[in-house]
């Protein structure tokens, strides 16, 4: 028995969240139209909350009883023909429970199609794993595609890849911007966002990566299988909290063989200045739904008291990234304190 978790979701939704983030890509849901409608509706509802959201190209082959009985491969082939005719940069075929249950060989159908690179993501929810499994399967599939693409010119600068951004997160772009700012302290920038707001050709930069920055540690098994040079360093998570943000700069510096002291000092000063803007909160008693280390550290730095009788303040999940994320959080706290 399992109580449904509001924080989880279907494998198909996870896969779709990745595939729909390829800017010139087309996503083909190989399954019943209802499956496609439901998850596309979820995706669009979420994207509409994000500033500057782009509506992704989507299709479904609308499997019905006939395809369940006789197999859905012909329907997939017809839909792929139509998809190719729309001239996308790439096509993602996302399977569904029905397609997996009847054993359609999506890979074999995709192999017969020329002209557009195709990734096939097994996304049948009954296979287990929920949203994260779909996300990871899609990243894996795009990793395999990246290895087949010609590498674009990355210039002389080290290529830093952000891996597995949570595309349904309201603050996904704010997090990426913050990472860009932090990397800028070391005179670097984000080379490739794998996979968010990236055209298909841009994914070809992944195999050239000099450093991977994973959105969260749970993506480590995915990173292990990405087509990158052996020994490519990685940071297993976006930085959350004051000291972790400084540690992130040190980790990046160490990974790329450069001194990070000046960057850390500058960021520490930036953090101090940012906290000073919230000095009026000092002495407040707050109550938290959870007390992860980074929150306790933040409360200490601002001289806030964590107390069961304090004023309840939100602790978002996923946690805010970098110093900018903390500043946004403190602005929310200020509204209730």
């Amino acid at each position, binding site marked *: 028995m399992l109580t449904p978790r509001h924080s989880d979701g279907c494998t198909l939704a996870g896969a779709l969240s990745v595939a729909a983030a390829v800017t010139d890509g087309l996503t083909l849901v190989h399954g019943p139209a209802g499956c496609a409608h439901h998850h596309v509706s979820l995706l669009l509802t979420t994207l509409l909350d994000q500033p500057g959201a782009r509506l992704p190209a989507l299709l479904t082959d609308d499997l019905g*009883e*006939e*395809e*369940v*009985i*006789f*197999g*859905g*491969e012909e329907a997939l082939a017809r839909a792929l023909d139509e998809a190719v005719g729309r001239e996308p940069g790439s096509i993602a075929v996302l399977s569904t429970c029905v397609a997996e*249950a*009847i*054993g*359609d060989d999506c890979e074999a159908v995709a192999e017969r199609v020329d002209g557009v690179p195709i990734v096939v993501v097994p996304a049948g929810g009954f296979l287990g794993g929920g949203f994260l499994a779909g996300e990871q399967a899609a990243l894996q599939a795009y990793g395999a595609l990246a290895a087949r693409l010609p590498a674009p010119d990355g210039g002389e600068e080290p290529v830093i890849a952000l891996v597995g951004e949570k595309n349904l997160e309201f603050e996904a772009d704010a997090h990426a911007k913050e990472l860009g700012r932090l990397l800028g302290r070391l005179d670097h920038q984000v080379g490739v966002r794998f996979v968010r707001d990236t055209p298909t050709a841009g994914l070809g930069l992944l195999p050239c990566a000099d450093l991977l920055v994973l959105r969260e540690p749970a993506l480590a098994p995915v990173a292990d299988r990405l087509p990158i040079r052996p020994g490519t360093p990685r940071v297993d998570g976006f930085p959350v909290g004051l000291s972790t943000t400084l540690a992130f700069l040190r980790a990046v510096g160490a990974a790329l063989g450069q001194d990070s002291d000046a960057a850390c000092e500058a960021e520490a000063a930036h953090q101090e200045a940012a906290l000073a803007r919230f000095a009026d909160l000092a002495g407040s008693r707050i109550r938290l739904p959870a007390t992860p280390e980074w929150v306790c550290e933040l409360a200490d730095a601002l001289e806030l008291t964590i107390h069961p009788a304090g004023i309840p303040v939100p602790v978002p999940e996923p946690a805010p990234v970098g110093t900018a994320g903390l500043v946004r959080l403190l602005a929310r706290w200020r509204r209730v304190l």
Partner: protein
Amino acid sequence: MKQIALYGKGGIGKSTTSANLSAALGESGRSVLQVGCDPKHDSTRMLMHGEPLPTVLELVRERGAAGVALEDVVRCGYAGVRCVEAGGPEPGIGCAGRGIIATFQLLEERGALEADVIVYDVLGDVVCGGFAMPMREGYAEEVYLVTSGELMSLYAANNIAKAIARLAERPRCRCRLAGVILNAKGMEREEELVRAFAQAIGSRLVATIPRDRVVQLAELHRRTVIEYAPDSPQAAVYRRLADDLLRNTDLSIPQPLTQDALESLAFAHAPPF
């Protein structure tokens, strides 16, 4: 209306038995419908003199369910037996079990499932819920297990008994085991073994169909034995089977054997080396 289903291992002779049973019932003046529930759609071939029937699923695929009329899928065969073939996907693709469900829904909607006797000839084993559907939904009220004395055949029969026992626990399910039919391979002590098996699962051996070359000859001539050799002892066996099945009211919920018990039973009835 009597609804009979023959289940058993693939190749054991279900279609031959079904067709001859239907032919014998048809000859006796009863209205008979035989429904082939196997994707290879050859259940009614002998009744139709080798003429291939358009299958329900083939036509649904071509025209959509709304475009399929009863007369498109039901054809009259030997002795007035109405014949239907469900059909299904090519081997290795799709879901044949779902095809059975779709076929029954269509036949039900078109009012096809009416006759004095309906004979369902179902694919070898209850490999998924789709093939159990005729039992689950009350179409196959009386299930006969067709088996030989070979261990693999008894395994399949025992598996089907498991399905019946499981489904019979459901309040709405009317499906019961009506007996075991031995389609003999001519093995030593074969009837003794199959009779013991039937008793062990709480049923009985209702008929023994001996091995006879006339069956192959009839098939080569695309006829049932009843039609090809009406005066043969084998035809008499099928007619007797039809009479017995019509009279049979001895229905039970089987108690399937464990694998060990089944193997022990087979071992105990093995001929001496």
